[in-house]
């Protein structure tokens, strides 16, 4: 079993936040992923690579309970996803922030309300002075202070990614999963996004990023200890030193 810990991390209990045990996923009669075993320790920073269509997005969806493995066990925060109802999965998902390449928003709501959506759906206050101050701080952190009242269709690709990241972290989740977060943005913007992810990791958040972007991986490795996983021939492998 691969066990990936952040070597430089803060010396606390390394109970896995995401654990896959002999996981397989089949779709349309064919097996897309097979025999995947992985344990992701809290505070670690992982990249997931692999050719297009290799199953990176499917792998991430298994990691936040959007898909159920057809074989094996997926455990999130030590709870087996298979035995959970949809509402239980929803509650677990509040501890996992997700950023997609084609970040989807509620297009009729302004950016601030979209970012605060995880708070709203979990019944937390979003209109108090404290909540509004936190939201402003978060908008400033992702550089969207001036775009808070804009509607999502009015945002550029990079702004959408940063808004999605802000939405993903507003609940202060333990884990952040990002699926090709730099796929639609330029190099400068991708470096800016990486900086935010690195900052989150330094705050103790567990990061797992699916990407093709080797430059992004190299840039991250220069800043924090990272591990690289690769999906090849439907299996999960440790990436080589060439990265």
């Amino acid at each position, binding site marked *: 079993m691969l066990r990936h810990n952040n070597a430089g991390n803060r010396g606390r209990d390394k109970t896995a936040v995401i654990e896959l045990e002999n996981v397989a996923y089949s779709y349309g009669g064919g097996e897309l992923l097979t025999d995947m075993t992985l344990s992701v320790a809290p505070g670690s920073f992982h990249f997931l690579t692999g050719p297009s269509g290799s199953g990176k997005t499917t792998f991430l969806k298994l990691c936040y309970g959007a898909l159920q493995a057809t074989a094996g066990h997926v455990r999130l925060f030590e709870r087996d996803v298979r035995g959970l109802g949809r*509402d239980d999965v929803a509650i677990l*998902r509040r501890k996992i922030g*997700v950023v997609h390449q084609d970040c989807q928003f509620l297009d009729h709501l302004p950016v601030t309300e979209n970012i605060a959506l995880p708070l709203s759906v979990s019944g937390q206050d979003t209109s108090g002075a404290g909540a509004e101050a936190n939201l402003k701080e978060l908008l400033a952190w992702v550089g969207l202070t001036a775009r808070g009242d804009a509607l999502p269709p009015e945002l550029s690709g990079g702004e959408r990614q940063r808004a999605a990241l802000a939405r993903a972290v507003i609940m202060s989740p333990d884990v952040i999963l990002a699926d090709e977060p730099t796929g639609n943005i330029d190099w400068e913007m991708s470096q800016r996004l990486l900086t935010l992810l690195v900052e989150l990791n330094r705050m103790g958040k567990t990061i797992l990023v699916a990407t093709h972007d080797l430059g992004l991986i190299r840039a991250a490795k220069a800043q924090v200890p990272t591990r690289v996983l690769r999906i090849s021939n439907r299996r999960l492998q440790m990436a080589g030193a060439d990265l």
Partner: protein
Amino acid sequence: MLQFDEKADRVVPPTGFTARLTVFSSFAMAFLAVFALALSLAAGRVAERWGDELAQSSTLRISAPAGEGVTQTEAALRVLRTTPGIVDARALTIDEQRALLTPWFGADIPIEDLPLPQLIDITETDEGYDAAGLRLRLAAEAPAAVLDDHARWRRPLIEAASRLRILGWASILLIATASAAMVTLAANAALAANAQVIAVLRLVGAKDTYIARAFVRRFALRSLTGAAFGTLVGIVALVLIPSRGDSAGFLTDLSIQGWGWVWVILIPPLSGLVAFIATRFAARRVLEELA
């Protein structure tokens, strides 16, 4: 489920044809429900009135040969006055019998020259009398007497009115069912059209109950609004129908009276409740499919 939550309400896009469809169908159904209710209540009143008016009166008709009329009338009156369950028995005067015939033959009818039967008006107690026993006694004392207790022609009238009342309630039930079907269709369309909204909400950790609530509340409120307007317009239309008072029939007596207003006031909340149940059912099914 209907508790107001502005944030939750805002997650569903505010416009679309489903909104207008729900409001309009609830408006139309409530409007029709007011008329069905008025018909049912009017039929009930008519059935009750006919029943009350006719149940406590009977008529005795004496068609005796010439010379025996007075004798048999007196004998019949004696029998009637000693019959339990009869409060009063009174032979109609010539003038009263003329008044009964005037609508058909005019006021100048020479009633004295016609071989008309003598009519006796009988008033009963609430409990009524034993008609079969009375007929036997009359057969012995006044063989020319024919007792008409009105049951023969009263029953079909009351049955007709009762059936109309049932028809009215059945119409209300059908209206509620059709309303539920329309709201279900509209909710299904809205949920399907907002699959991306549902995906986003799930991504950020929304429970199915939260997502369903956002849609259910909106549809229930739309239905409530439409039904309130429909009921109001229905009431105005009823008021505009000219009334002819107590002697009026069905068509001119389609009014709401007394406790009937309680049913009318209940139409909008019941419409909202129907929409609530229908949308909740639709939301659960669609969320199950999208999972």
